[in-house]
């Protein structure tokens, strides 16, 4: 992408940097794993300098699919939504994720545009730097197509049970246990066998009971590359997280499902085909079953539609 040489008083250096999977740790030691946890292709870095107003750093993360770029934005829905171009028609107020494709806060603009995730960061936030950061954002997305959010997102039930509603701003799309753990810690190890060939979405549901604190339930949907992988992952997950159920399962349904009262409430999962749904911190066993069942119904619908 050839960005203009100047934005207001900020001028681009002649040299831009191309970072790939091998060199990313030299560029951002300790942070490169985030991008490699999705389908990362390469990163272009451009820096704009000014005489006395600090710098603006532009990072263009080119991902393999729109879903990978979306996943990076979905890690944090905080910030002020900014419209860089018309919002896509597929995102509505009833969407399981916020409709925003660009978020700004304290000098940092983050945006998702098709296979591109970008960060535009002013070293000093001023009215002038904000104006130019947004101008750079508009230039980046100009003429680019707007992809829909990943189909897996649409398998999230909008509500579950009579009293729980989805919190769109807490929905994260991911492929790696590292990203899962940064959103919701489950285990120090990869007990769900997630990798870049899988996709998952973590959602939070809140009780509509008015008295605080409102109870929250976590729902995790995973779609693996094939059924054999899903079955192996379910067995590993059962052994690591629900060891008490192993004996029961050996005489019954096998590792494809478990439901157990654990330290922070009821937790359960079920694997069907190449999909797995798991619920955590649920108040009772019936509700846990309902969360998992409804999620699997939606996943089955998605699979039947070949989405």
């Amino acid at each position, binding site marked *: 992408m050839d960005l203009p040489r100047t934005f207001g008083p900020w001028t681009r250096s002649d040299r831009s940097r191309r970072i790939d999977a091998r060199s990313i740790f030299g560029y*951002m*030691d*300790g*942070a490169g*794993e*985030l991008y490699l946890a999705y389908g990362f292709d390469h990163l272009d870095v451009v820096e704009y300098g000014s005489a006395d107003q600090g710098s603006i750093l532009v990072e263009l993360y080119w991902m393999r699919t729109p879903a990978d770029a979306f996943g990076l934005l979905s890690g*944090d829905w*905080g*910030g002020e939504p900014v419209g860089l171009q018309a919002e896509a028609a597929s995102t509505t107020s009833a969407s399981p994720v916020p409709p925003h494709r660009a978020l700004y*806060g*304290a*000098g*940092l603009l983050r945006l998702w545009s098709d296979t591109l995730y970008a960060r535009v*960061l002013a070293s*000093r*936030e001023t009215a002038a730097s904000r104006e130019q950061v947004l101008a750079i954002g508009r230039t980046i997305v100009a003429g680019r197509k707007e992809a829909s959010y990943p189909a897996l997102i649409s398998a999230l039930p909008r509500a579950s049970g009579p009293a729980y509603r989805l919190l769109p701003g807490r929905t994260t799309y991911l492929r790696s246990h*590292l990203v899962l*753990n*940064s*959103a*919701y*810690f*489950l*285990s*120090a*190890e*990869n*007990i769900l066998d997630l990798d870049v060939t899988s996709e998952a979405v973590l959602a939070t549901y809140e009780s509509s009971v008015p008295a605080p*604190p409102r109870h929250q339930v976590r729902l995790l949907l995973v779609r693996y590359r094939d059924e054999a992988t899903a079955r192996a992952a379910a067995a590993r997950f059962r052994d*690591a*997280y629900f060891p008490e159920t192993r004996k029961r399962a050996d005489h019954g349904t096998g590792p494809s499902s478990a439901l157990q009262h*654990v*330290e*922070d409430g009821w937790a359960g999962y079920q694997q069907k085909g190449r999909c797995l749904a798991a619920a*955590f911190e649920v108040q009772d066993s019936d509700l846990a079953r309902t969360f998992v069942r409804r999620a699997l119904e939606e996943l089955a619908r998605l699979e039947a539609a070949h989405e």
Partner: protein
Amino acid sequence: MSDRVLTRRDFMRGTVGAMVGGSVVGAEPLGASTRAPRPPRSAEVVVVRDQKALNASHDVDVTVLREMLSETIARLTGKASARAGWQAMIKPADLVGLVPTDHLNPTHDEVVEAVRAQLIDAGIPAGRIKNAQGGPDNARPCTALIALPALKAHWLTGMGTVLKLYILYSGHPSRYHGENNVNLGEIWNLPDVKGKTRLVLVDALRPLCDKGPQPDPRYLWDYKGLIAGTDPVAVEAIGLKIIMARRQALRGEPWPLSPPPLSLAAADEKFGLGTSRLSEIKVQTYGWSQDTLL
């Protein structure tokens, strides 16, 4: 801590250390008393803050910083002056390695230079003070190390401050990524490192409470503090407490640190580097008292 797979459930049971468990669940875990038994330890941590340490543009006031550093060293060592304090910790014959965070939300250069200047003032020859961040070859010749990390949360390790500071001394930093970050404390026991750290001084002028190490200015704030001690685990625990309190203040409700800083409890219970138990840490705070978060 055992080597079996750690899960969220272990944290809820409180078997991984109350401070770490609390960082996962946002409150004291259910069974904090079930931590691994070990002999009691004690540690002292000094926190010095000054409202004028940074200006509105977040630039460091070097004069104020020097005064903060002097107070920190004098208070920590119990000496009448910073010079006497440094002389109690470092000898002129030492080869001193300064070890700052050098990448992504780095330690302020002004902090490193203030330490260097006070060491020289205390009689350490300038030629015997070096920047020792980097591979194990940098630590090997040093007889004294001064850890100078910046306070920040880290998306992979929970915390990216004290215990992670020496990761390059392992010679194999990738071995401590992912789930193996629990073993960061073992680096402090490597032959080139063990016993050399005379001071841990955390740059808490403008910490980062989420999404580190990549800078996200929404999560930076002007704490305007220095945190110091000789027990790296205790200093990390106090840094964690400040980070967690800031997160709760931002959200108005508990905002657990995820993933939890597994290395903190392991540094205490598995590697014996110090104490992560707040009940064993005496914290002294001086200076600006607003939003101390302790």
